[in-house]
């Protein structure tokens, strides 16, 4: 790790202008991934703009019933917040399924979204990686890739996005709020992360200098049955082999609304739009869920050693959807 300058920002404007006025700047949040990558030499900032003390640490209800989570809200506080737990259980569950108690105490909402892939080739400077060093090649494609993508990968990159939280945000129709040199804007969580294409170095749609200031969960998905399920190599403290977040609204015996997203299958949380379309208006039966999920996963292009991810994702998606349907139907009749 080379030496770097450090500045602590007191306001969002101060942060973005500090970033803009220094080449090689990076925002420092909880640091759980950035510091890790700096130690590995993957990230080499010239200056860190510390944003952890910005007044972005609140969970607040908006007038329209939506919920805004400040970018500096720590993962553990997010998962424990009564409004999050009660209205968006999938989000709380997803956050709690990730990392460890210590890491969740440090990691921020914004930082969680911006964490980088755990692809071992990305982390190892002595190996080719198009994400780390565009044009150098991909070590994983013909290498060790059991954990890699089955959907949406490109010849340049087969990495997956490691976040659990982002999968839930994607399913719940959250929006990511940004502030940068060109002012404030927001992007749907489902569109925030990119597919690798021929620019795998670009994880997200964030523009240079932009800062994630918060995440807004819409009123539309508040209070609906939602859940997150993750499969992994050990019982805790491991990245997903596959995960799923789903939210389901059943009205008049048919699916009135559904959000379904997969984690660990692609370069971004994979919003299952085809499955959702197939389910809208259908009765929430096992057959309908199987048809919809199979339709979605028919797009999968597994690599040599990760074909298992398709039935794994299928299995947990059907499990979560059927449980949500049970909940929705029980609620309706009670």
């Amino acid at each position, binding site marked *: 790790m080379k030496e770097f300058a450090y500045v602590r920002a007191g306001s969002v404007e101060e942060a973005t202008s500090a970033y803009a006025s220094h080449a090689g700047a990076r925002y420092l949040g909880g640091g759980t991934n950035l510091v890790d990558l700096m130690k590995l030499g993957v990230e080499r900032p010239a200056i860190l703009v510390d944003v952890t003390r910005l007044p972005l640490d609140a969970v607040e209800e908006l007038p329209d019933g939506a919920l805004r989570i400040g970018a500096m809200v720590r993962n553990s506080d997010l998962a424990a917040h009564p409004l999050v737990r009660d209205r968006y259980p999938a989000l709380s569950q997803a956050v709690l399924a990730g990392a460890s108690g210590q890491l969740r105490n440090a990691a921020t909402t914004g930082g969680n979204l911006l964490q980088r892939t755990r692809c071992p080739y990305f982390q190892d400077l002595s190996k080719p990686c198009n994400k780390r060093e565009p044009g150098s090649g991909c070590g994983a494609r013909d290498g060790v890739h059991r954990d890699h993508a089955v959907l949406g990968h490109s010849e340049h990159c087969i990495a997956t996005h490691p976040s659990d939280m982002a999968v839930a945000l994607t399913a719940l129709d959250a929006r990511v709020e940004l502030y940068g040199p060109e002012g404030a804007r927001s992007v749907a969580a489902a569109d925030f992360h990119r597919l690798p294409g021929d620019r795998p170095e670009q994880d997200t749609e964030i523009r240079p200098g932009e800062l994630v200031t918060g995440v807004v969960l819409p009123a539309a998905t508040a209070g609906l049955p939602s859940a997150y399920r993750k499969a992994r190599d050990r019982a805790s403290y491991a990245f997903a082999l596959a995960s799923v977040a789903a939210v389901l609204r059943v009205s008049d015996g048919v699916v009135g609304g559904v959000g379904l997203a997969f984690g660990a299958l692609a370069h971004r949380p994979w919003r299952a739009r085809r499955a959702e379309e197939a389910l809208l208006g259908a009765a929430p039966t096992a057959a309908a869920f199987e048809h919809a999920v199979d339709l979605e996963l028919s797009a999968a292009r597994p690599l040599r050693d990760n074909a298992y991810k398709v039935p794994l994702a299928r299995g947990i998606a059907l499990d979560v959807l*059927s449980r949500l349907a049970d909940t929705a139907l029980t609620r309706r009749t009670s």
Partner: protein
Amino acid sequence: MTGSVGAPAERREGREKVSGTARYAAEYHFPGRAQAWPVPAAVARGRMTGVDTAAALAVPGVLAVLTHENAPRLAEPDDPTLAVLQDPRVPHRGWFVALVVAETLEAARAGAAAVRVDYAAEEHDVALTASHPGVYVPEEANGGYPAVREQGDPDGAFGSSAARVDAAYRVPPLHNHPMEPHASTARWDDGRLTVHTSSQGSGAVQGVLAGLFGVPAERIVVTAEHVGGGFGSKGTPRPDVVLAAMAARHTGRAVTVALPRRYLPAVVGHRAPTLHRLRLGADADGRLTSLVHEVTTHTSRIKEFVEQAAVPARVMYATPHSRTEHRVVALDVPSPSWMRAPGEAPGMYALESAMDELAAELGMDPVELRVRNEPDVEPDSGKPFSSRHLVECLREGARRFGWAGRDPRPGSRRDGPLLLGTGVAAATYPVMVWPATASARALPDGTFLVRVNATDIGTGARTVLAQVGADALGAPLERVRIEVGSTELPSAPLAGGSSGTASWGWAVHEACSRLARRLTEHAGPLPGQGLDARADTRGAADAESDWARHAFGAHFAEVAVDSVTGEVRVGRLLGVYAAGRILNARTARSQFVGGMTMGLGMALTEGSTMDAAFGDFTESDLASYHVPVHADVDEIEAHWLDEDDPRLNPMGSKGIGEIGIVGTAAAIGNAVHHATGVRFRELPLTPDRVLAGLLDHRAANDARTGSPVGGSGPVRGG
């Protein structure tokens, strides 16, 4: 010998460990101490053609960059992995090619990143297969065992057996990963070398450093006061201690080399992958007629280490015909070495899985199959056992576990999407003991001081040796002080091969017994400096024994396999051991349970992949190499039988540090088969493998019965 031995005495260093005051090797703050950071080779095979250290030396705080061009010359070591920075050859990826010494950790790391090395890379080969053209039969396997043993006509007998199992198993490379990464702090003063190192045996470190640096051993002091685990990987010196001593000599400063976690898999040894072929033949009553265990493994280009995985098959079961054979191929891989129960851990996974398959083939209870094949003498050597209570372990384990009444049919128990099963496997580990020296002193204040260069790597050696000493002295435990962990103490062997307590304890017992005799002969008050006695067990501890001496055990496991995800969880794990006399019930239980926990990891979560293109282990850190966490470990129980064996040592003890891992993976694997009906023969049992196996099994069943895909099974219906 009565009194302290056997009692659950509290760890003597416990307070220091829970208060954070126990110091480990990297924590000795000599004045002006520098920090060093190694640079690993970035090719799998080749030569360094140039090193540019200018940028590294320009990093503020960097003191020196050592490479093969300027590092102190070493005498040729017996262990080639210690010949660091001596020549431009790169024998495997991750081999250290430079060392940056700096004022701070930050500067050292930045300096290491700035070292530029050019290589002439050569074609490499790291892929182990049983049919690799380079496979050969070595002279012997680790531990000095003959590579091949054959009795009778195993192939002929197998061919004519009523029941047969012919199966291949694979155990992947595994990493020790003790919680404390390898670390050493070294300082030269006036031609004398002081070293604090994280090692299982400081005596060996002293001897090796003396040879490498051409310094008399008496001018070198090595201490290993607290060691954060080793599990074999710190059994002999590793590059960190050589580098620390080199850097300290080169810079004239005290230097600490604390290896980054990611660098460990390449330089501290690993459990080599093993490919097993097991053939078991039996008559209709389940009596073995033939046993063939063939193992193929890898070693590095610079060092032959052959995991002795077929050796336990020479100990376990009676059979008239047998062959056990080791084969090895030298590849461009890091050098393998000891990892907890080398040989027994992977070998018994294969053998005990095959025994389970044979039981299924015969329709016999797997406990009864093992009982039926209990030998009268050690099968391969013909020697009588000094004690062997495997059958008792199996019976006692079955009783405690509630084995009776088990429905043997695979897939017979289910709890929603969870498939439940139970499994059993036997365990064995040889008794090893080495000569040691110790001293004991009686002081005028009525206390005693026992000194022995034992190493407490977490086993509780201080505590149990004090217990042994107290009983030999006939003194209360609290009167006996003990010093371990330094070459300034009477020399003693390493903590390895589950031999430490037997070896050190024997010498402590002798020294204390002699002192007790001196005290009875002594009249009047003790002189100011006290009264001394010494012991050296050479000639006794290493005397050839007419007996086959082994510990035995039985493992029982209950698992739940999630049919949706293929995730396996172990609900219960039980071990019952016959390991001689247990000297401290408290620390012994912790060792047994610890071994079983590592066995659980071997079964379910731990596995490393040799990257064929790059020639290194992909899972190099603790995020990707999955050591079990708290949530993986539910109920683990360890029990033992009172085993009275007078043919061991004065304490009557067998080693207990390794047997806990042996057999655990097989018991879990057998339980997974019982739960699912699928026989997995490759570890670890991660969801990718298990789910694929379940789906194949279901597809095969559906094809057989004509029932449609998509019925009951891994996918839950709505």
